[in-house]
């Protein structure tokens, strides 16, 4: 056996397993979704193997006029999802940034404990945590009772089933995703650089803008992306805290697969989310490469 051939077989042995795994469990399902999104829904669920572009038409504007007029509702739900996911990223960032700074300055023992606290919610069921928020936010919940108790409002305020509730819930669920990469880059920041900046005449704000922010940008971008992606496709938080009023694209996809049993349309909606994520990743890669020069 030639050396090259043996090398090849060795490589295959090493990489073959993971590659096969990825092919079967990641690209396989994805491929099925891509194919399904171009098929016609079966009468009782499933698919008929007839090519159709109308699944995308229904979303993007060339619906089958025999059955319905074009309804921009899907695009507007998608738009809302983008907006809510972006707002979730922003609120998580605004909370995580100072928190990460503060924690990075603690003594080692306290620091480890604080990071443990940040990741603690991972150990409690998501559903339990979200229903706890329902108890807090509903008209007769703790928040409203507190506000009415101190006389800030006479009538209970509608917190539940609003954009606010969904952003709050998603921020609460995804904040560790933002916090951890951010913490990684903030902890690496050399305090001496902050002092050097002040020494050279910069105010605290100038130091933040010119030294701290650029130095922690990789953490901000990393955290933003891995928060944005699951927030965009999330359907549990909006279904518990948003109800029927604040649907997100994830809810829509879930409905198409589980209740409406229109798999091709569900697949097309899922492709919309996939595309948004891909665009985001490409932009990020471009930015990262640009940043190196």
């Amino acid at each position, binding site marked *: 056996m030639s050396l090259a051939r043996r090398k090849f077989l060795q490589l295959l042995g090493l990489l073959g397993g993971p590659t096969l795994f990825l092919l079967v469990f990641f690209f396989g399902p994805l491929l099925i979704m891509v194919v399904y999104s171009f098929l016609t829904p079966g009468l009782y669920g499933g698919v008929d193997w007839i090519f159709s572009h109308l699944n995308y038409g229904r979303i993007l504007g060339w619906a089958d006029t025999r059955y319905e007029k074009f309804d921009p509702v899907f695009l507007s739900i998608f738009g809302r999802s983008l907006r809510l996911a972006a707002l979730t990223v922003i609120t998580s960032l605004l909370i995580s940034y100072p928190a990460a700074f503060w924690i990075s300055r603690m003594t080692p023992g306290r620091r480890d404990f604080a990071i443990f606290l940040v990741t603690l919610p991972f150990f409690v069921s998501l559903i339990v945590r979200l229903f706890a928020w329902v108890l807090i936010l509903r008209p007769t919940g703790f928040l409203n009772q507190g506000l009415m108790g101190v006389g800030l409002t006479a009538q209970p305020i509608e917190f539940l089933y609003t954009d606010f509730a969904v952003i709050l819930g998603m921020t609460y669920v995804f904040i560790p995703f933002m916090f951890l990469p951010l913490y990684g880059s903030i902890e690496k920041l*050399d305090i*001496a*650089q902050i*002092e*050097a*900046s*002040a*020494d*050279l*005449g*910069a*105010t605290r704000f*100038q130091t933040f803008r*010119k*030294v701290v922010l*650029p*130095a922690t940008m990789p953490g901000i971008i990393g955290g933003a992306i891995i928060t944005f992606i699951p927030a965009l496709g999330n359907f549990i938080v909006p279904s518990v805290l948003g109800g029927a009023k604040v649907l997100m694209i994830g809810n829509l996809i879930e409905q198409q697969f589980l209740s409406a049993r229109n798999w091709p349309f569900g697949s097309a909606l899922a492709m919309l989310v996939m595309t948004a994520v891909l665009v985001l990743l490409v932009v990020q890669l471009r930015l990262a490469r640009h940043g190196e020069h």
Partner: protein
Amino acid sequence: MPAHLEIIGARKAFRTPEGGTMTALDGISLKLASAEFLTLLGPSGCGKTTLLRTISGFETLDDGDIVIDGVAVTQMPAHKRPVNTVFQRYALFNHMSVARNVGYALEIAGKSKREITARVGEMLELVGLSGMGKRSVSQLSGGQQQRVALARALAGKPKLLLLDEPLSALDKNLRQKMQQELKSIQRELGIGFVFVTHDQEEALTMSDRIAVLAHGRIQQIDAPSVLYQRPANLFTADFLGESNLLPVTLDGMSAHLADGQSFEVARPSGKATLLLRPEALAVTPPAGPSLSFSGRITQTYYSGKDHQIALDTGQLGPLTALIRTGGTPPEIGATVTLHAPAHGLHLIDETAA
């Protein structure tokens, strides 16, 4: 000449994690003339960095004042003080190019692009890094980073430059080269340097004056030669260079060593310590009155130019001497007699703290 920098009764104590307090500066006063190169020298933990940080504004004093060119800056925040610092580990902004690092103070001061470019070019030339402006700082060697840190601190034309062990990370050859360059840059710019080191050779070769610090206090502040030849107290004598310290008794006319030898000195009677530098001892007796010491050689070190030998004199205890022997090295176990001229000897008073 008016003092350029004046520190008056500076005190600073830190709270230790165990709950006690640690006095880092215990009443320090000093004056720096303009264009003077002052070195803070002292053992680890004696307060050198703390003193520097109170001048730059990163630590606030518990008591005392700091005056720069007649203006009290004690309460002024760091970013407003007309001093810049070269940090020990450089603290360069590693997300910026060399040129942006160097131009940072000017960028902050809102200077025009043209002015910044010109000044950055000038600074890079001064530190010998012309044409390196576009590099990223992570692509530089330690010595080059050191130069960028220096150029960055000088670009904003500070009235005073503070340097905290700026050369300690460099290897010996590079360090000596940088010592000379720093010194010539300081002369060229004519601004005051406050330089921290715990390398005494570095301090002796570079400084106009050296302040020897211990336990948060200035032990002595003087020109290097004065400090070396006429230390004011035992700490300075011991800390700076090799020294033989021999107790003497004074009777008002002369000083007596423990072995009975004496030399003339006009001082009130009492006790004192005689300082004999190793290089003051020689094999050949000098003309005129001298002191002599006989003993057995217990150890020898060869330094390239000289032999350093340790001598056991019995009654006077061990002595260290630097002797030049043309070729034949001294042998361990041999007995020698060494001589020192008996005039110009330096005595340290017992009472000097």
